[in-house]
């Protein structure tokens, strides 16, 4: 089975560059799409062809389904890679590609639909015997139902949008008196953000860890997992630092969570590449949280410990090739950590777009930088603030940490404020070094007043 001749990358910035690089190595021609303010963007420069598809606003450019499909048509692209965000989890886009005779590099539209319905996904997992966070069985549709569920599971609870993500449409409720209001506010927020006010309820597990499993499945239904990633360092439900393996992982833990991941993927009849997210409480118990039906931002840490190129595998699987690896061949080696570097001020994380006057990434053994930034590039204000991912690999977690500290010191980005100083604080903190942290850690660190030397 031949791979594609030409792939259109329906995304921008670092992930578009990532996909273009994988295509180049596979001998596949690439087409970049861009909004009219991104003519000088790196993904446009690196692709073999480029098509301007609309003005700056995402809705008219990177979310413009007709524009993107038309660009694929005029360039004779055989497949589209949606990256992450934007249209990657839009089932209509996946279907539209299918109708247009273009291969969507990712799971089926049915997988995407199910993954996007978090209440339903929970139900399916529960029925398959995968532990889920205690909560409602499906969506909660009335105030009475919420009260009933909450009385069963006990406070504190978290009300979440079924169609949601990114921390929106979520409310933590500690007492019954706050419940009704939180429910209504979350409904409104969900409707505004996602066009869908459906909510479900879960027991809120404070001081938990967020551990996810990378899975891959071929068209015959063979599924393997590539180990786990720990994404506990988050701020307002946005990931900042990820690592693989998880500091709490043992061979036994990995086997258990890996099996849950495979079971979850099979329950959904999942195809191509995806991630199953779990939360792990203080006792070490694993609970299913949600499915991510796309390649994720933090995929590089898994690549570094397994040696497998996840984007290339996505392309091969989309072309109909069978899974190349058996589970027994997947043996993570060493430790990898990623820092997401955003164009935001490092104390309050407020977006800080503008011109990067000087960009000098770190290097040396075990250091990888995934970025579309360069000296002179103007970070646009219209899109998300991620400008670089700094990934390290070491033989042990300790070595990876030292490598990250060195790399953060070498990384120079001038002209805009970035979150590099925040990451330096984390990597100099003993709790992080000990692997002793929960989801409250990042917020705590960002408010810390650590005396840094001038260069920090």
């Amino acid at each position, binding site marked *: 089975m031949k791979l594609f001749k030409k792939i259109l990358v329906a995304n921008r910035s670092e992930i578009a560059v990532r996909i273009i690089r994988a295509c180049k190595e596979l001998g596949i021609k690439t087409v970049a799409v861009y909004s009219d303010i991104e003519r000088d963007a790196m993904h446009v420069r690196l692709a073999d062809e*480029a098509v301007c*598809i609309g003005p700056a606003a995402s809705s008219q450019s990177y979310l413009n389904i007709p*524009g993107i499909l*038309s660009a694929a*048509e*005029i360039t004779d692209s055989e497949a589209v890679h949606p990256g992450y965000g934007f249209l990657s989890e839009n089932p209509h886009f996946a279907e539209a590609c299918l109708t247009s005779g273009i291969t969507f590099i990712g799971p089926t539209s049915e997988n995407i639909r199910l993954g996007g319905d978090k209440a339903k996904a929970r139900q399916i997992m529960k029925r398959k015997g995968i532990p889920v966070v205690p909560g409602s069985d499906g969506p909660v549709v009335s105030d009475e139902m919420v009260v009933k569920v909450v009385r069963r599971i006990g406070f504190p609870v978290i009300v979440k949008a079924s169609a949601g993500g990114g921390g929106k449409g979520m409310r933590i409720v500690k007492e019954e008196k706050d419940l009704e209001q939180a429910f209504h506010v979350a409904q409104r927020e969900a409707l505004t953000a996602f066009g869908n006010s459906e909510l479900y309820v879960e027991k809120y597990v404070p001081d938990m860890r967020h551990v996810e499993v990378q899975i891959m499945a071929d068209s015959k239904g063979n599924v393997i997992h590539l180990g786990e990633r720990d994404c506990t360092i988050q701020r307002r439900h946005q990931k900042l630092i990820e690592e693989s393996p998880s500091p709490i992982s043992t061979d036994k833990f990995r086997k258990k969570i890996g099996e849950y991941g495979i079971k979850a993927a099979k329950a959904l009849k999942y195809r191509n590449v995806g991630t199953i997210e779990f939360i792990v409480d203080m006792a070490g118990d694993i609970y299913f949280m949600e499915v991510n039906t796309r390649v994720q931002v933090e995929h590089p840490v898994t690549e570094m410990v397994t040696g497998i190129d996840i984007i290339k595998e996505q392309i091969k699987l989309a072309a109909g090739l069978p899974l190349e690896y058996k589970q027994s061949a997947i043996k993570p080696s060493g430790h990898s950590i990623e820092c997401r570097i955003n164009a935001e001020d490092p104390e309050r994380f407020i977006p800080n777009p503008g011109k990067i006057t000087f960009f000098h990434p770190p290097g040396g053994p075990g250091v990888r930088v995934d970025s579309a930034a360069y000296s002179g590039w103007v970070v646009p204000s219209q899109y998300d603030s991620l400008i670089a991912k700094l990934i390290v690999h070491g033989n042990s977690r300790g070595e990876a940490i030292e490598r990250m500290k060195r790399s953060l010191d070498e990384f120079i980005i001038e002209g805009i404020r970035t979150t590099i100083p925040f990451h330096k604080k984390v990597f100099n903190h003993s709790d992080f070094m000990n692997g002793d942290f929960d989801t409250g850690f990042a917020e705590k660190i960002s408010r810390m007043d650590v005396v840094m030397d001038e260069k920090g």
Partner: protein
Amino acid sequence: MEIDDLKELISLLQDTDIAEIQLEKDGTKVKIRRQMLVSSLEMRPKKTPVTVEQTIETEEDVQRLVTITSPIVGTFYRSPSPEASPFVEAGTKVRKGQVICIIEAMKLMNEIESELEGVVVRALVENGQTVEYGEPLFLIEPVS
């Protein structure tokens, strides 16, 4: 050949419309060519190899004329169908909202309208050429 001869040849060129003179005399060959200043349109996008056109508009023209750009990605057609005549030609008077071309995207024919009242100076793309968002399509001389 003497310097004076060359000078005479050069002034001959300058005083006439002759573009190039080649002369052979006494075993010496001389070719003198007038430098033609040609301004070309902005670079075409990478996707379609198209010969660069030579413009005939002056600096003032460019200031005055209005460029209609493509609002979508697709294939540009000058006529409603292959056999029909083009919607507009150089010199055609257009009203605001008048259809000046079609851009086909995903089997749908999108009629593109003029944004102003004026006279078509010329088309900037070829029939059947693929166009991107913002691609210059027509130069229109506005009615003042």
